[in-house]
């Protein structure tokens, strides 16, 4: 079974309501003084966030970067699914190193998380190219991936994975994700500053509890 079986992003939840509001506004075309009815339509909408949940990662890091690095960020992504799917995705990523790990990470987590708006970027306060500290990173995750599309019910063992990948930029603002690689040969590439000797990401998972 595919981990990400949804072919298209679900429609924005407020869209039908907004369309109804617009239609109502056009049909009624009341004077400005009587338009107080419009906000009531929005107020009648359901409270937002049902089915969504927040995943928070306390991320401790300690590293020293290339002297050419001027800015570093964590790009963090979260994705929910059944435990089997999450475990398989984690295994695929962790079985790789270097660019292959990045590709696997992007495919299994970063890309779908970006698609569903479950991604955030957090600046890392560097001091002389070093960082030693901890940051709390929170993401709101939707419930769509917790629902089995065939049955409409909860997937088995709902689980969420969250990952953060280090992104590095030079003084010109040029850069992208860091990559793990052995020490470079003489005459290294221009993006040598993005190279680190350790895995530049963290990836973890946990069961999603039932708050009911």
């Amino acid at each position, binding site marked *: 079974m595919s981990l990400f079986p949804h072919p298209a992003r679900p429609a924005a939840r407020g869209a039908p309501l907004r369309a109804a509001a617009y239609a109502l506004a056009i049909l009624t075309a009341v004077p400005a003084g009587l338009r107080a009815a419009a906000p009531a339509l929005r107020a009648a909408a359901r409270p937002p966030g049902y089915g969504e949940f927040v995943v928070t990662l306390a991320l401790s890091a300690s590293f020293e970067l290339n002297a050419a690095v001027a800015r570093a960020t964590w790009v963090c992504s979260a994705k929910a699914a059944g435990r089997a799917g999450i475990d398989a995705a984690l295994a695929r990523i962790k079985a790789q190193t270097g660019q292959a790990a990045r590709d696997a990470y992007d495919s299994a987590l970063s890309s779908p998380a970006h698609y569903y708006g479950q991604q955030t970027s957090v600046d890392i306060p560097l001091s002389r190219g070093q960082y030693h500290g901890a940051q709390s990173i929170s993401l709101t995750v939707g419930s769509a991936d917790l629902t089995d599309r065939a049955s409409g019910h909860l997937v088995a063992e709902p689980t969420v994975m969250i990952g953060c990948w280090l992104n590095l930029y030079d003084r010109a603002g040029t850069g992208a994700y860091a990559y793990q690689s052995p020490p470079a040969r003489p005459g290294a590439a221009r993006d040598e500053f993005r190279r680190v000797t350790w895995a530049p990401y963290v990836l973890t998972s*946990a069961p999603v509890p039932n708050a009911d």
Partner: protein
Amino acid sequence: MPTSGARWLALGLLLAAVLPLTAARAQQLGAASHVNPTPAGSLPLTLDVEVSLAHLHPGASQGGLECGAIVRPGDWIKSHRGEITDYASADKLVLSPAHYLGQSGSAAFALSRGAYGGSVRFATALTQAALTDPATRAPWSPQPAVLIVCWLTLNGHAAAWDPSVAPRVAAAENTGFVASSPLVVAVQDLSAAGMSAQATLHAQGNYFVPGAVALAAQVGGAGAASASTATAAVPANQPGQNGAANPSQASLNPQPISLQVGLNAAGSFQTPQPQSIQVQLTAGGNFVVPTAASVGANVDAAGAFTVPAPLALSLSMQSGGAFQVPAPISTGLTLQAAGGFLPPAP
């Protein structure tokens, strides 16, 4: 004045449009909770439903019973009662005909935290038309009885019955599911003195409400220019590095790392006092030491040792907490003696 005339005209149109609607709504709401003034020749009917609801969708705030009553021969009721299995059949067989006769209504009640417990009353009156078979224009026979049906509504919509064991994820679009039947059916014999029936409705939701998740992890290492002083491949599923399979262990609280130092001296030498060995553990490669780890060991010179060559110390590092080291880490040490070496004892 023309302006004033227009205003009166507008007001008149507004009242003409609003008043009938208000009156109709008041009549419908009145049917829900109060016995209507019984028209002459009609029979008052009440149904008290003991309602118990729990674990409904957290977004469900308003519950209700949509009810209707019709009169039919006893045999007809027996044969058709089993056909009422969902809202569509309830609507077709009872609610819609009852609505046509003015014998339907809804009784609303507020939900609190997805639950409700209490008695809900549906009251109506059976008209002469309801007592008459339209085909024969004669009273329903034989053994006419009243079939009363109520269907649970949540947030104004008919509840959906989902008997599946697996829960649904509580989302904005699925507030109306219950795991047991939202249907109430009651049969009451006709009585000229009025009728009162009782029923119960127990329904539970089966929702999964995703709760907040908190995790902790650690990452880092020396930069590209730094040579690793030690490397340790951390298992992927161990907490502390690129994975935390067990959420209960995901919160990293590094414990002191214990180093066991084994001193192998081939010969004999003697120290005037116990010697202290200090080891600074620095991070390199794939694991991180949040604070410099210092390790102490004492070489107790109780006996006499002879050291023909530089001392070889082997360290075996064991993880105390979040650090997971798959294999012992070997490193090289230089031993410096603060005291003086004594010559071998004669």
